[in-house]
């Protein structure tokens, strides 16, 4: 007997397919972007929207939009701190005490007036949470003598304070609201502060935007803050999406976003002919450098000064710049070109193979073989450390130095680098704040100096110069001291500054003010139509 036909499965399948077609058709395939919605594509390293906990690139963009700071920078400038919540500030002659006078017309997004108590709470919370940005106020005590005055006192002279204050991690939170949701600024806040989850859903600031939705994985939505005290931002809504660079390249050409922040110089070069896009490639603030370990326990070869000079003159700096692409420059010293105290391009070391060979001969080391550590899986600004390492290997081979590439994944390589156990190391230093004091870490006994086996006391002249530069209040004199330090580093130090890779920002033609700033990457409130 022939079984009876059962039409239902077919009918149901038809219904499902029809529903899918209708539903997908009614969506139209377009985005919901309007003229006043700014879509920014960024590859997320986002962890939190809590300003006192964030210290990531994408976290900085969000915190800058949500929270005001005492001082700020204009556009892409990072050399001149200008008033924001503080209408003015004064520094003591010894650069140990900074007094900030606050504006009295600033309100948080809930209408509460911003006072010095909120600044005190925010700064002490930053210190006591002991998170990634806590070091910004190392050795600093905060006080609020009255409702419109804040005083920062450092144990030692700290002329970098005005350059540190604009960092979004020092964004001022509404202390009453944050306390009500588990926040504390007391010692032990690293364990007792529980306000992060609240701040990941609701902003408590006085910045140009408020938080509409926050996801560390997909996107962050911001809405213009109606009580914002500064100029109203052009875009009512900002969407910051977590998009990887290859998709950013397609999206920006397709017009489904207004700004792309992670394109490499190579990717950006494919857009140079586009009439609908503006491509900005400028030297970025990251400094890529090579070091030769000064610790004889790590290597008997690498501490040799002649050997180090052989490396210094054996590297083909021009080819590194060429490899890095648009916007990249050779960095003459460890302080990047846009900061106070940077060396001029004329002071940069040039390749001299003959001199390098002579230095190697003077070292008394025949056919040296050394290991080069680097993060093999790490790429920044479109530059792979593996490719750079191969170039170092090839350059030094010409001089007569055999380099074994011993790269490893960054989580492993970092441990070796930070333990100071690499013979040669290829790394980068990104600015924590836009001031040359951040680069004193390269001196003997300091953070990066120790990683290169350069112990305290190894070069008393240079160390004394560092101490003086770090505490000089006059910026002109400070700049000159830092240039002196770098010239000496380029002669006696174990570091070989290579390049500042290009920083690329691509925006659609209609967007103005999409400027890269080393402190917060992008101020979305500065973007205009």
């Amino acid at each position, binding site marked *: 007997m022939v079984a009876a036909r059962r039409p239902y499965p077919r009918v149901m399948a038809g219904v499902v397919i029809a529903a899918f077609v209708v539903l997908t058709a009614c969506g139209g395939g377009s985005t919901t972007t309007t003229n006043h*919605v700014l879509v920014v594509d960024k590859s997320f390293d986002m962890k939190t929207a809590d300003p006192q906990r964030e210290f990531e690139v994408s976290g900085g963009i969000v915190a800058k939009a949500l929270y005001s700071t005492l001082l700020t920078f204009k556009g892409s400038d990072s050399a001149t701190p200008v008033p924001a919540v503080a209408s003015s500030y004064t520094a003591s002659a010894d650069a140990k005490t900074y007094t900030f006078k606050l504006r009295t017309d600033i309100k948080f997004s809930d209408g509460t007036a911003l006072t010095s108590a909120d600044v005190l709470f925010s700064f002490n919370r930053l210190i006591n949470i002991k998170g990634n940005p806590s070091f910004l106020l190392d050795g600093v005590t905060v006080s609020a003598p009255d409702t419109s005055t804040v005083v920062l006192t450092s144990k030692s002279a700290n002329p970098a304070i005005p350059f540190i204050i604009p960092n979004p991690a020092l964004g001022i939170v509404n202390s009453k609201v944050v306390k009500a949701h588990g926040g504390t600024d007391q010692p032990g806040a690293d364990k007792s502060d529980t306000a992060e989850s609240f701040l990941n859903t609701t902003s408590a600031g006085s910045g140009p935007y408020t938080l509409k939705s926050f996801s560390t994985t997909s996107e962050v939505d911001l809405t213009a803050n109606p009580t914002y005290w500064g100029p109203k931002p052009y875009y009512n809504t900002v969407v910051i*999406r977590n998009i*990887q660079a290859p998709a950013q390249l397609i999206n920006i050409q397709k017009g489904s976003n207004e700004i792309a922040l992670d394109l490499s110089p190579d990717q950006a070069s494919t857009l140079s002919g586009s009439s609908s896009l503006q491509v900005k490639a400028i030297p970025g603030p990251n400094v890529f450098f090579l070091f030769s370990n000064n610790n004889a326990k790590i290597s008997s070869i690498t501490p040799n000064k002649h050997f180090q000079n052989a490396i210094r003159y054996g590297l083909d700096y021009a080819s590194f710049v060429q490899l890095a692409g648009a916007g990249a420059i050779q960095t003459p010293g460890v302080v990047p070109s846009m900061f106070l105290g940077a060396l001029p391009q004329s002071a940069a070391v040039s390749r001299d193979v003959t001199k390098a060979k002579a230095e190697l001969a003077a070292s008394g080391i025949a056919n040296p073989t050394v290991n080069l550590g680097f993060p093999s899986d790490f790429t920044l600004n479109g530059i792979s450390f593996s490719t750079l390492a191969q170039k170092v290997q090839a350059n030094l081979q010409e001089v007569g130095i055999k380099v074994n590439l011993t790269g490893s994944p960054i989580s492993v390589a970092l441990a070796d680098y*930070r333990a100071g156990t690499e013979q040669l190391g290829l790394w980068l230093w990104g600015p924590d704040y836009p001031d040359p004091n951040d680069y004193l870490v390269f001196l003997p006994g300091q*953070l990066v100096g120790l990683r290169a086996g350069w112990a305290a006391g190894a070069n008393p002249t240079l160390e004394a110069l560092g101490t003086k530069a770090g505490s000089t209040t006059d910026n002109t004199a400070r700049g000159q001291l830092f240039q002196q330090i770098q010239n000496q580093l380029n002669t006696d130090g174990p570091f070989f500054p290579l390049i500042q890779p290009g920083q690329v920002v691509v925006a659609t033609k209609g967007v103005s003010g999409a400027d890269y700033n080393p402190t917060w990457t992008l101020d979305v409130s500065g973007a205009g139509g």
Partner: protein
Amino acid sequence: MTSAGPAANPEIQPGWRLRLPSRPFVRFLGRRLAALFLLGLGITFVAFVLTELVPGDPAAANLGQRAIGDPAAVQAFREHYGLDKPLPIQYGLYLQHLVTGDLGESEQSHRPVRTDLSEYGPATAELAVTSILIAYLLGITLGVVAAVRRNRLTDQVLRVISLGGISMPTFWLALVALYVFFFKLGWVPGSGRLDPGLLPAPHVTGLYTVDALLSGQFDVLANALQHLILPACVLAAYNIGLLTRFTRSAVLEVINNDYVQAARAKGLPERTVVLRHVLKAALPPIITVGGLAFANVMTGTVLVESIFSWPGIGQYAFHSATTLDLPAIMGVSLFVAVVYIVVNFTVDILYGVVDPRIRVA
């Protein structure tokens, strides 16, 4: 109180009786659950030991360039994540917490791993299930067509297509698909689960399509489906090829059997013969491939999620591994293990459903 006999329940007709699970089945289920427990325990142990063997430092990987030089920050980090304790104690504490469903706190997101998994898991589940459905629908259909039209032009074309699906690297296919269907043709949106600025429906399951349907937000549903279709098809490509080849050979094995010839001799239409008699007999090996197809989907998600900026388990696993985020690595390992076991268990059950000769012994 009325009797609960068959007559009282209109659903149960005379001649029918409720079937309680048989004893062998209960034993089978028990064995599977025990295996799940032991496997989970084993996975936590292996993941723990392997992560410890990697010569990296979670503090170095997670703290910033400055904070790592600050002993107070490093100490706070180690204390917070229990890294200051000996390894056996760390493992014991992990298991102790695991019993209460606490998977620890992620070092990269600073959130409970359970919260992370509940956010990333549904994104991957939505993508994986859609991909599997597409793969089964197309793979079986094409396989049957190829078998029925054996050695004809259709079969040759399908062979090329299926081999192409199996051979093409997923990341390459994803980039090409994004370029062609989003950039050039504009048929589908490019990245993410929704258009920028469009908020998902209130969270119920975490599956955007289901949540949108439940809340009646059909614009969100349409948008989520549009975003889903391209990555799901890319992820399905390999499995479509695999299932096409398996279905073809499974169908060919039974298509000329006596009972099939008998069905044809009775005058049944060829479509009925194929769908009702041939395909049913060919199903067990096809179901077996389902387990493999699922494994392909799980490995493929890492690349597809990255290219389509899909915030799922694949991306989470990748970031966890590169930052030595031990609690997250353990959480992902457990999650994947449980899903695997459930999928294989389902496959075992389906054997019995499609082929009564296969019984749980």
